[in-house]
């Protein structure tokens, strides 16, 4: 498959506008500016593009919820990239910032937004600088700003830096953060499409989602739809980390089997050890084991087996990994990142962490596994946003497949591996 998202990854100098233009950059924007916005939305619907931020919501459909006649609308690009195991958006922003900016301009024109914000996590200082420079270049060449290419369409793009809060990747918390508040999720409805940033209609899309748009415009919706499974098509970036020989980013057709990603592209398990478990889409996604490796990596196939594609961040663990410790690290993450707005998550994730921690530290008590399970039941479905459920899903996944390791830890006060 011809790469469209990572074609410039690792190439020195590819981030400049001259380099981007020499590869046909901003042609898609030119084309789109001569089209009716409805036709662009239809094209994106026809492409089958689904959001790459985690939830897989159809992008064209999301755009169609934006009221056409609203005078003030916004586009927010979600570049918070905080889900552990995920490092794809950074790859695009550092090596191909204009791909994202062109995608932002296309989406903004389609929904009629005149301002767009890129919400980038605070730690990505280098990527933020790259984006800022690229935005300046795009203004200079007339691809952003007033009356773009003489078409009457105007767009300003701004970079807004987060400053250390995973929850700001949740779309309504992201909006709160841009408005200058603590990043705590808002009640839905109203959905951002009707009342988003400053109470105005707003679309929030992930970096990778928006970066697919230039190729959809240039190569056509049918081209995009022909890649991978019918119901979740397109190219997808998989970020592979952990115990593999060649960790890194791989752009492959959506639906590529997990086994192929790990053993062909990422070179297999280091030191030729055995695979123990793999998290398919960032730590919120329940882990899988050897028997499930032939699962196609797409939204529906993973949902069917009780996990999720999430961000496509694949974390591979070999046979030397202690699953209690892995669970502890994940619970520590969730309790650290709980925003504190609702009690089941704030208190619940703290307790989950404490109990897994004492098992990990050799201080587990008989009945702790059952206690964890009942706590999970008290949290799941009762939290204000999906973060709390994510913590439960991740822990339930480990407990379901590696319960005996927890029991062993409790009885022998040490790891099974």
């Amino acid at each position: 498959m011809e790469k469209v998202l990572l074609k410039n990854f690792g190439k020195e100098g590819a981030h400049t506008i001259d380099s981007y233009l020499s590869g046909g950059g901003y042609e898609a924007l030119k084309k789109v500016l001569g089209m009716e916005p409805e036709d662009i939305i239809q094209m994106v619907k026809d492409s089958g593009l689904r959001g790459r931020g985690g939830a897989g919501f159809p992008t064209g459909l999301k755009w169609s919820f934006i009221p056409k006649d609203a005078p003030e609308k916004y586009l927010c690009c979600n570049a918070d990239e905080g889900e552990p195991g995920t490092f794809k958006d950074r790859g695009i922003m550092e090596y191909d910032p204009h791909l994202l900016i062109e995608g932002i301009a296309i989406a903004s024109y389609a929904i009629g937004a005149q301002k767009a914000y890129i919400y980038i996590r605070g730690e990505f200082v280098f990527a933020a600088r790259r984006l800022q420079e690229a935005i300046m270049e795009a203004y200079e060449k007339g691809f952003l700003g007033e009356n773009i290419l003489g078409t009457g369409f105007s767009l300003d793009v701004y970079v807004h830096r987060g400053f250390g809060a995973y929850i700001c990747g949740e779309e309504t918390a992201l909006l709160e953060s841009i408005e200058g508040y603590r990043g705590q999720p808002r009640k839905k409805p109203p959905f951002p499409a009707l009342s988003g940033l400053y109470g105005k209609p707003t679309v929030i899309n992930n970096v990778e989602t928006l970066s697919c748009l230039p190729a959809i415009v240039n190569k056509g919706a049918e081209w995009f739809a022909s890649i991978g499974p019918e119901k979740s098509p397109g190219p997808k970036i998989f970020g592979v980390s952990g115990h593999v020989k060649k960790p890194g980013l791989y752009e492959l057709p959506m639906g590529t089997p997990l086994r192929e990603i790990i053993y062909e592209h990422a070179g297999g398990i280091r030191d030729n050890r055995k695979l123990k478990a793999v998290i398919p889409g960032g730590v919120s996604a329940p882990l899988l084991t050897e028997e499930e490796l032939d699962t196609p990596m797409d939204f529906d196939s993973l949902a069917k087996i009780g996990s999720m594609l999430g961000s496509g961040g694949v974390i591979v663990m070999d046979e030397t990994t202690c699953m209690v410790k892995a669970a502890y690290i994940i619970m520590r993450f969730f309790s650290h990142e709980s925003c504190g707005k609702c009690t089941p998550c704030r208190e619940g994730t703290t307790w989950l962490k404490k109990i897994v921690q004492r098992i990990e530290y050799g201080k587990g008590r008989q009945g702790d596994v059952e206690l964890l399970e009942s706590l999970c039941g008290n949290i799941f479905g009762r939290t204000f946003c999906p973060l709390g459920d994510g913590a439960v899903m991740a822990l339930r996944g480990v407990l379901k497949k590696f319960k005996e390791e927890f029991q062993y830890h409790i009885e022998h006060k040490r790891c099974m591996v």
Partner: protein
Amino acid sequence: MDEKTRKEIEEKIVPKYRTRRSACMATMQLVQSQKGHLTKEDMEEIAALLGMQPVEVEAVGKFYTMYNVERPVGRYHIQVCENLSCSLMGGEHILKHIERLLGIKTGETTSDKKFTLSTVQCLGSCGTAPVIQINDDYYENLNEKKVEEILGKLR
């Protein structure tokens, strides 16, 4: 806050947004970048400038972990990723090694105020684990020897 900073806030940050309040995160980032942390006085000044209550600015400062609210850090703030991919690739050894090299524990600052050592959640660089961040820069694919070289240069 000096005149130049005020000017930068009014000309570069505030116009990006529909409300002055929206400028508070970037303003706090700017002030922190000049001195390493934020004091109560800084936050009062920012509040007055942006038409907010000081407690509102403080609430923002305490919510986002990268703001060093009333918490001075050393000239080099070393943050070691403690999340899963880094841990699988030896992140804890890196942390212990840095503790040994600097003679401090996680959360502490060296007595010469040069280094502060912290742990941090996933830095979004898991494919090049283990990873640390020192001030604005990432250092990836680390091992003990590389850490020694990096710290050696900063000493």
